[in-house]
């Protein structure tokens, strides 16, 4: 009997791996794919963002762990990118070591002044900022030394590189888009798997992975607490998937049927309809080109034309028209982890509101709907949060992966 069991177990091991693979597979960060993303970014994004920002040379001093380690490399050194008028940008590194697949030129740091003079750039971006930003990555000592080395003529031409850095990070090549879509699909599957775990009356929010939350009719929120899920709850869940320096997070919504219910109650169906109507408004009115702030104004206008109340914070406004559904928007960037915050953002707040939405910008349709339910009493309302990954193309907004399909029912 023992032998039979051992044989059965051995035979099943390959299937175990096969089955696990069929379930969920975080993509592997192959060196080839990572290098491709880097090269495509240098080839397709860098020339465009340098020209958009009227920068002839970009000097980036890196001394260790840095926001741009993935894009430029892990090695300390001074990275110099020069627009020499051809299609691509010359890529050079001074000091440290270089990856020969990525860079055209390597020299000693002492060679920088001559290198710069030979290229005679009119505007030189350097990795510092004049405002509050994480892109202020050069040390004061390095900055002083570099300006001295450049001499009076070229140091006067140095400008802050924060916007250039933000634009560079916000640009997406197609290999990055493909990865983005993969991660979105994986995060959706993770969310569905977490919803499957919920047992009404037993499972607490903090037993579910991700950012899980629900609000009562007065807007009081339970967020990853010990609150035990009850029948009639409408639960939101944000969860993500990642690979190296890339991550996405998607959202899902679940409703726990009450005893005797076989389908979503009318008010839940109604709020879902609002989610679809507003999604269509967003999809039709976001284009590459305008800034996040300009786009927000357009969306507010369109929402109000369609009979919604726009709210600039994620909180039900008791002073607003009690008949109208309220919508809050925070369309932040998705993709490279470091560029989710300081990136183009269609939102009432955030650093990147004044950045232009670039072509193929990847971001989230994150919006919250607060729908009054008059039959519950004055001010009582229902709340959901949608969080789907999208991208801007020449045709408007596209979904690189399936968006939320509906409200998951927990029986």
């Amino acid at each position, binding site marked *: 009997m023992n032998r039979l*069991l051992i044989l059965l177990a051995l035979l099943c091991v390959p*299937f175990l791996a096969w089955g696990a693979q*069929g379930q969920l597979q975080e993509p592997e960060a192959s060196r080839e*794919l990572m290098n*491709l993303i880097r090269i495509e970014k240098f080839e397709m994004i860098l020339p465009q963002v340098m020209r958009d920002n009227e920068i002839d040379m970009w000097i980036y001093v890196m001394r260790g762990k840095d926001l741009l380690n993935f894009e430029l490399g892990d090695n300390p050194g001074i990275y110099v990118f020069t627009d020499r008028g051809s299609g691509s940008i010359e890529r050079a590194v001074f000091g440290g070591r270089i990856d020969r697949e990525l860079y055209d030129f390597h020299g000693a740091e002492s060679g920088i002044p001559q290198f710069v003079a030979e290229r005679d750039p009119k505007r030189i971006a350097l990795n510092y900022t004049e405002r509050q930003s994480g892109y202020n990555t050069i040390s004061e000592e390095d900055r002083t030394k570099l300006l001295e080395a450049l001499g009076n003529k070229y140091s006067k031409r140095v400008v802050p590189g924060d916007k250039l850095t933000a634009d560079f990070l916000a640009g997406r090549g197609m*290999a990055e*888009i493909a990865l983005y879509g993969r991660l979105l699909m994986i995060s959706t599957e993770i969310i569905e798997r977490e919803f499957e775990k919920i047992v009404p009356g037993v499972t607490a929010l903090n037993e579910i992975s991700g950012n899980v939350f629900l609000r009562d009719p007065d807007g009081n929120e339970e967020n990853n607490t010990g609150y035990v899920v009850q029948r009639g709850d409408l639960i939101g869940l944000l969860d993500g998937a990642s690979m190296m320096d890339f991550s996405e997070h998607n959202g899902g919504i679940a409703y726990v049927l009450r005893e005797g219910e076989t389908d979503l109650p009318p008010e839940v169906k109604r709020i879902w309809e609002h989610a679809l109507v507003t999604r269509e408004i967003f999809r039709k009115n976001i284009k590459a080109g305008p800034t996040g702030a300009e786009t927000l104004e357009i969306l507010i206008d369109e929402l109000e034309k369609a009979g919604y109340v726009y709210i600039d914070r994620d909180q039900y406004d008791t002073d607003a028209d009690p008949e109208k559904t309220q919508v809050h928007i925070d369309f932040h960037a998705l993709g490279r982890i470091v560029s989710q915050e300081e990136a183009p953002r269609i939102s009432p707040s955030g650093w990147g509101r004044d950045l232009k939405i670039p072509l193929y910008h990847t971001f989230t349709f994150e919006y919250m709907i607060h729908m009054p339910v008059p039959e519950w009493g004055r001010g009582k309302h229902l709340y959901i949060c949608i969080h789907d990954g999208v991208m801007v*193309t020449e045709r408007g907004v596209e979904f690189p992966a*399936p968006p939320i399909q509906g409200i998951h029912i927990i029986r």
Partner: protein
Amino acid sequence: MKKVLIVLAFFCTLFLVRGSSAQRRDSDVMLNIEDANYGIFEGDAPYDEVKMLKHIRLERFYLILPRVMREHNIDMWIHVIRPWSWGGTDPLRYEFGSKSGVFIFTDRGDDRIERVVFQGRVQDPGAYDIVRGRSEFINQENYEIMDYVKENPDKVLESELHLRFLGLGDFVAERDPKRIAVNYMETLSFPEGSETFTMALTDGISYTDYVQISKALGDKYAKRMVSAEHVILDYLSRRVAAEVVLYGSLRAQGGRSRSFGNIVPGVTTLGDIRGGSVVNKDGNERSGDNYVIQRGDFISGWQGSAYVLRKGETDLPWYIKKFWDDDKKIREILRRNIKVGPTAGETLKLLARKLEEAGFVYTDYQEYNKYVDHPEKTQVHLDMHAEGKGILAPRFSSMGPKWHWNVKIQLFHTFAVEYMTYMRVPEWDRANNFTGQQLSGFKHDGMVVTGRGGEVPYPNQSDTIHIIQ
């Protein structure tokens, strides 16, 4: 121990069931879907492919359908997938999610196109506004039609054939389209030209169907029928972003560099290094698992190449260096000169000119030509056909039917960067009685056309050359 084994066996059985169902998922989408999509969906996707494929269908209806119909001035598009073929050859069976039916798309003037399945079944009814519409008459084994005939003896038709499109006339008249595209062929070449061998492309309905549709529409609307051939090809040749995701992510594991670290010249065989082929020091090709690798061999394969240094050599010979440099230049020319907008034929002319300007000889033939004016120049042949769908158009190539070249390059066009290079190596030629011996290469990678030009969505086959001492 016994308990542990029982538990392990139980869990393994569970995974066995799950594993096998995970593998089956893509075939659940539709039988023969691989044929319809030129193999793109055969990959081992780490996510739910069924959902992704349904999503792509919806995105295409939303983003591409209105554009294609409006650009071709079509108010209504009727596409008949004949039931007896079970959709085996219809090019739109994935796009419409069905192997049998009458699909009617009507531009009713708002942002979107009305989508109706007049007869037939679809996998994804949610993708349509009306499924089965007003026609209950799918076939004569249907209880509804039996009931109808019993209840309406005065309305029984002369021929059962008339049931095929019953109700279509009223449906069309209500919408009053000016131009109705129907899937029959008018000017394009036969499906063999597509090279896919699996699809009828635009040659959809039979003569009988044509006659019956004409009768069902009545004289007024039958006169408004035009061939849908270009609508179909245009619809197939366009892509949405989600298709780029599928294209890129399913192939992202390609391009892995291979290790050649353990090769011992005179000892190691091609079989020991998992195959490949060799060009020896005299330019002669050798292959087969039993071939013993020699000094001066150039080993090539999909996942990288290697050169075994000859006695006294310290670096790659000139011809391999030049071949690799040429390859980089060719890729750059291709990438920089493919744009959204022009036709494939116009693009091919441009690429040929750019290659010639860069010092190459462009050749229409997939073989080395030793009689060209400048035999010392590297020759390049292109066959960059579409990938990801069942058609090869638009196709940057001298081969294929004319319509392959006449199709315009659209946003997110995904295609194979397939080209062949032939470089003369005089020493090899001398060693082989001047028979035209050359170093040749074949590349087949992927590219997608965006508003910025050609972009690489997944790693190319490795272009690293390992030097073996």
